[in-house]
């Protein structure tokens, strides 16, 4: 505890000096998220392992026949990526909620929407991007033609950013509930459907050699819409959860 040495007079910060520097706060939040996840590798790896495991169940459950697998591969890879993302969402705000960090974020002079979107961005970097990188590996196992791997990765990387943003809303709404996990999937999965349609559509188009760009453009449009609407929805939901 501090020794009672010469205590300076307490100063009141006036309007002009109170200008908070947003970039400092955002960069620090991103660094904080990444270093937290570096120490909780399981949190990052589990969705990836789930993805690989779940995909490998399908040939066992349906048939190892290559033609059939090729036909269903785009859908499978996308649906399972959806589930893997969903699995990681519950932890997005949970520990910060429990230890009181969210409360501090809310009380800081920075906008809560910007801080929480930074957390979502970290989530995407550590869940969506690894899923996209890993998908071609599973594509091989599902006899997906080689020429569609690029589109698979791009569509997953682009689409999973929307998934993280939309899922962030659900995570923020359920973070105050003791068992929000199942409810979270009920809230979020219907909202994921457009991303699923255009994402798997892109891969399917790539497999049969159709134009891929319209699908990817739609994924981009969805991401733009999510970037506009999700931040305020996440911030509003977090406020509700914290003060519940």
């Amino acid at each position, binding site marked *: *505890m*501090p*020794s*009672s040495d010469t*205590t*300076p*007079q*307490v*100063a*009141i*910060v*006036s*309007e002009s*000096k*109170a*200008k*908070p*520097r*947003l970039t*400092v*706060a955002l*960069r*620090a*939040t991103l660094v*904080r998220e990444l*270093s*937290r996840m570096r*120490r*909780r590798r399981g949190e990052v790896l589990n969705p990836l392992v789930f993805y690989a495991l779940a995909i490998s169940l399908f040939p066992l459950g349906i048939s190892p026949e290559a033609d059939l697998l090729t036909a269903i591969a785009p859908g499978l890879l996308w649906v399972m990526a959806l589930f893997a993302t969903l699995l990681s969402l519950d932890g997005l705000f949970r*520990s*910060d909620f*429990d*230890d*009181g*960090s969210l*409360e*501090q*974020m*809310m*009380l*800081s*002079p*920075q906008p809560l929407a910007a*801080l929480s979107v930074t957390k979502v961005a970290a989530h995407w970097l550590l869940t969506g991007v690894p899923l996209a990188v890993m998908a071609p590996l599973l594509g091989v196992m599902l006899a997906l033609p080689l020429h569609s791997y690029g589109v698979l990765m791009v569509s997953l990387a682009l689409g999973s950013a929307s998934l993280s943003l939309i899922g962030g809303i659900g995570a923020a709404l359920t973070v105050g509930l003791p068992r929000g996990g199942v409810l979270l999937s009920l809230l979020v999965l219907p909202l994921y459907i457009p991303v699923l349609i255009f994402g798997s559509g892109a891969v399917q188009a790539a497999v049969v050699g159709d134009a891929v760009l319209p699908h990817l453009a739609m994924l981009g449009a969805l991401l733009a819409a999510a970037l506009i609407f999700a931040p305020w929805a996440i911030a509003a939901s977090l406020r509700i959860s*914290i*003060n519940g």
Partner: protein
Amino acid sequence: MTLCLQGRQLGCERDDRWLFSGLDIEINHGEILRVTGPNGSGKTTLLKILAGQLNDFSGALHWNGQPLSQVSEQFAANMLYLGHAPGVSAWLTPLENLAWYQALQGERGSEEQREAALARMGLQGLEDTPIGHLSAGQQRRVALTRLSLTPRALWVLDEPFTAIDQAGVDALEAQLAAHADAGGAVVVTTHHALNNARPLCHIALG
């Protein structure tokens, strides 16, 4: 510089039940306000309202004469709130946690500054140990380090004495008194009787 947080006719309703109502509060520089009351009487809720965290309450809050909602940014830059939960992440070290707090305020700070502040709280040698490995009292001390690291005029502290040892309690008490002496103000909930000769105001809820 003066400091004044005024609450008039504060009341809070939760699912048709009034936790408290008609509360008039005024906190000026040099004062320590202690809020007491039985469990469930709304101490934490009152503190959240005074910290500008809750906005569904009745009554009005003024910061230096202006409605709080109009000067919320300025208020946030002068107020430090410590809640029930210490607000430190178990997976980060004390230094990382404090760096993040400073950054939230828009300050970069320096590693030496943070190390010195931790040392003053008796946490030297633990700077790089993840919080999860520390005891509850040590975690609370890390959170309390913010009091000296990010100087703020108004402190709103919810049960700050929880989990810390007797020496820590005495030191924190002295720190609160010193803060008030220096022209700051403190709002605190605690079951622990503050035994010093400060101009102590007292509000009992419930």
